């Protein structure tokens, strides 16, 4: 039993050793193929990784919805307080925070450039604002938009703005990006599959004699095809490893930029990037699976 297993493993080891020796014999060709596979895997992997890291922006995110209700300028303090209470009592409102014109002014003064500019005005140009947190039934469209319109129509209110209009736009953009990236990934997967299928095809063409002789000596299908599967596996694992490392490096760089970009929107939505060995594991697995599938594709019809 153990002896049989040992012999079986022996034969695999020999096939693998033969494959590696063959690849080493033509280092340039092997390196070119390996790089081709690596690039074809890295491109969609980087795109998928960036998509993953912006995942917090996808429709399942739970950033709280807000409505900023701007009151008409020069509204008296008492009237501001009364409007605050009225808004708090409106259906769909969970919480309010009243920010008077003076408080707004003070906040702005702390920002140097704008503060200097404000000095040009004789009186405070800033309106008072009521920050509204909607309740659970109104924190998403269309309930949110309904509530926003209701607040806008109150007497003394200048306009009401939801903070998630841009978030919704971003959601739409990201949904589009996600579709595009998945299409890209499928396309590049097909590229890897076909490249390996073509490479194995030309390999079998040039080793036709060897395959025939092995068959004449009583080798079965599996034995004859084994070296080609190992060749494909080597390309897949090697290319996948390279692609994984490239992707890990590229995403680390892109993540920095992504964070900067998102901080412009006043938020930190970027998820932590994947742990790099996990990226390598994924690309290596995908590479191996695709390459072996490609080999299978081209060996499928081989009859000896």
């Amino acid at each position, binding site marked *: 039993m153990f002896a049989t297993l040992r*012999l*079986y493993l022996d034969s695999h080891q020999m096939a693998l050793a033969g494959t590696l020796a063959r690849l080493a014999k033509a280092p340039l060709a092997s390196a070119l193929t390996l790089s081709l596979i690596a690039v074809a895997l890295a491109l969609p992997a980087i795109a998928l990784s960036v998509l993953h890291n912006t995942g917090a922006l996808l429709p399942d995110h739970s950033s709280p919805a807000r409505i900023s209700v701007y009151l008409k300028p020069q509204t008296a303090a008492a009237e501001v307080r009364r409007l605050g209470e009225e808004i708090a009592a409106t259906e769909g409102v969970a919480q309010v925070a009243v920010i008077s014109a003076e408080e707004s002014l003070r906040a702005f003064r702390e920002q140097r450039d704008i503060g200097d500019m404000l000095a040009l005005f004789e009186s405070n140009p800033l309106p008072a604002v009521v920050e509204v947190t909607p309740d659970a039934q109104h924190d998403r469209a269309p309930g949110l938009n309904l509530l926003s319109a209701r607040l806008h129509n109150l007497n003394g209110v200048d306009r009401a703005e939801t903070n998630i209009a841009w978030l919704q736009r971003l959601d739409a953009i990201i949904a589009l990006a996600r579709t595009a990236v998945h299409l890209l990934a499928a396309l590049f997967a097909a590229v890897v599959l076909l490249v390996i299928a073509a490479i194995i095809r030309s390999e079998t063409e040039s080793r036709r*004699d060897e395959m025939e*002789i092995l068959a*004449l*000596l*009583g*080798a*079965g299908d599996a034995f004859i095809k084994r070296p080609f599967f190992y060749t494909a596996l080597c390309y897949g694992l090697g290319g996948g490893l390279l692609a994984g490392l490239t992707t890990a490096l590229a995403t680390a760089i892109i993540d920095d930029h992504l964070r900067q970009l998102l901080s412009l929107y006043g938020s930190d939505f970027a998820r932590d990037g994947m742990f790099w060995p996990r990226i390598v594991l994924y690309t290596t697995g995908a590479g191996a699976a695709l390459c072996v599938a490609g080999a299978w594709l081209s060996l499928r019809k081989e009859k000896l």
Partner: protein
Amino acid sequence: MIQLHKVVKRFRGETALAEINLEIGDGEMAFITGHSGAGKSTLLRLIAAIERPDFGQVFVNGRDITRLARAQIPYLRRRIGFVFQNHRLLFDRPVFDNVALPLRIGGAGRVEAGKRVRAALDKVGLLGKEALNPASLSAGQQQRVGIARAIVNRPLILLADEPTGNLDPELSREIMNLFSEFNRAGTTTLVASHDLALIGVLGHRVVTLHEGRLAGGAE
């Protein structure tokens, strides 16, 4: 051991073998002779299921091999040692690896394989040439590598197609004696050759083919 029953083989309408009835007994040794194109190679190839007959049956060790499933053919071939007319060696690897191929296919252990390969090379007088590439050997030496590869697995049946085609008379004799020796050890042996002088001396059964028909020795 080997029986051909009304075997017909055609290549593109041309009849290579016509209604061949032939029986080779267990442990028997026989020569097949005939002019070039008489069908000697085709006959041997039918026995190893390299060619399939158009009509008739071929029995090997009691089984009708014309009915074998594709997946069964490798097992048949592993019991047969075949010396090919054109050697069919692999020139991308040394002599040792060439001779070891049937053992690798059969799944022999490495130590055991090493022993058997050296024993086989010793028998054909090529011990010490294991590490050479067959391309660097003479035609006669390549022929003998092919013979070593055919016998390394201790086959049930040995089929040799012109195994002395490239050898001088003395070496031819040695090789034929080697086949006789194998045969004495119990291997059913069938050798295609047109070296009538040598065949006559050895005194085994001689089957003669003429234009795809048996012309003698069929009984």
